[in-house]
């Protein structure tokens, strides 16, 4: 049995090969927003599983969704294909894979930066430069506030984790006991 990851990657590769010209930094962030939105609102996908859905309702829903998520019209094909193949549940995974391929092709890396304090733009740039120098790649950063850190910063992606926070020090101390 083929795993969902493999299937999602196949859709993402196909989409990327067809429409890579529409993908840019702005679309990348829109896709990130879409992934977050779909993860937070999984019930939206349930609409596509309704039994007596008409084609006009389907079209309307896809149009609203693309508008809401600020995704280019080319994503309309992807959504329709996934609905047709009854694999709309993979949408979030496929979008993630499209962004992964985009990052790979553009020699970029995406990091999630959690901090206990608000970071100004110049401070965000310092972090960006720090990572760029360290990894010799272009960096995309996603920021959020995490009060659980108590004080500090945590930078992570699928492969890397850099953390300097009170919470980590306390955690390390607990592990030492």
């Amino acid at each position: 049995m083929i795993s969902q990851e493999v299937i999602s990657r196949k859709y993402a590769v196909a989409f990327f090969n067809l429409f890579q010209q529409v993908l840019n930094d702005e679309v990348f962030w829109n896709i990130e927003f879409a992934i977050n939105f779909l993860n937070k609102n999984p019930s939206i996908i349930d609409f596509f599983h309704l039994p007596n859905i008409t084609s006009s309702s389907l079209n309307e829903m896809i149009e609203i969704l693309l508008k809401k998520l600020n995704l280019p019209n080319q994503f309309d094909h992807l959504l329709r294909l996934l609905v047709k193949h009854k694999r709309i549940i993979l949408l979030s995974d496929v979008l993630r894979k499209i962004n992964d391929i985009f990052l790979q092709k553009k020699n970029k890396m995406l990091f999630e930066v959690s901090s206990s304090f608000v970071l100004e733009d110049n401070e965000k740039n310092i972090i960006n430069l720090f990572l760029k120098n360290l990894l010799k790649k272009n960096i995309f950063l996603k920021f959020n506030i995490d009060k659980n850190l108590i004080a500090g910063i945590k930078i992570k992606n699928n492969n890397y984790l850099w953390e300097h926070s009170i919470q980590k020090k306390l955690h390390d101390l607990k592990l030492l006991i």
Partner: protein
Amino acid sequence: MLNNQIISIFFRILNLFIILILLFYIFKKYLINSIKNKIIEKKEDLKRLEEKSNDIMNQSSNLDKDFLNQEQFFSKLSFKIKNWKVAFDKKLYKKIIEHELIKTKIENNLKLKEYSLTMQNLKKQTLLHGINQAELELKKQYKDQDSQLMFKNNLLSFLKNNL
């Protein structure tokens, strides 16, 4: 009359004499050999019995000797068993003492380990409590914006220095 009586006596004596001679003849002719043989047989029997008696006496003497030997052997064996029992008892006593020592040692070690484990747990709990208290204190301290700002500036300085 008297003559008749004398003649009668004479003949009686003669008869007696003839009978005796006849008896002697018969005895000599038929019985003496048989009796002689009987006597010889009896003598041989007697000799055999004497020999048998001597054999039995010898056997008895040998048995006495054997018995004596057996008694001596038993006495030696008994002495050896006594010695062996004393040695065995000594060894057993030594083993019991050793066993008791090992048992005491193990019990002491277990007590020590138990004590050490309890102390370790106590230490762990105390340290955990300390860390939890520190966490609460640090959370309070870093609610203050100035502390956050100081931490942020230090952190960004470190990042800048490592560019």
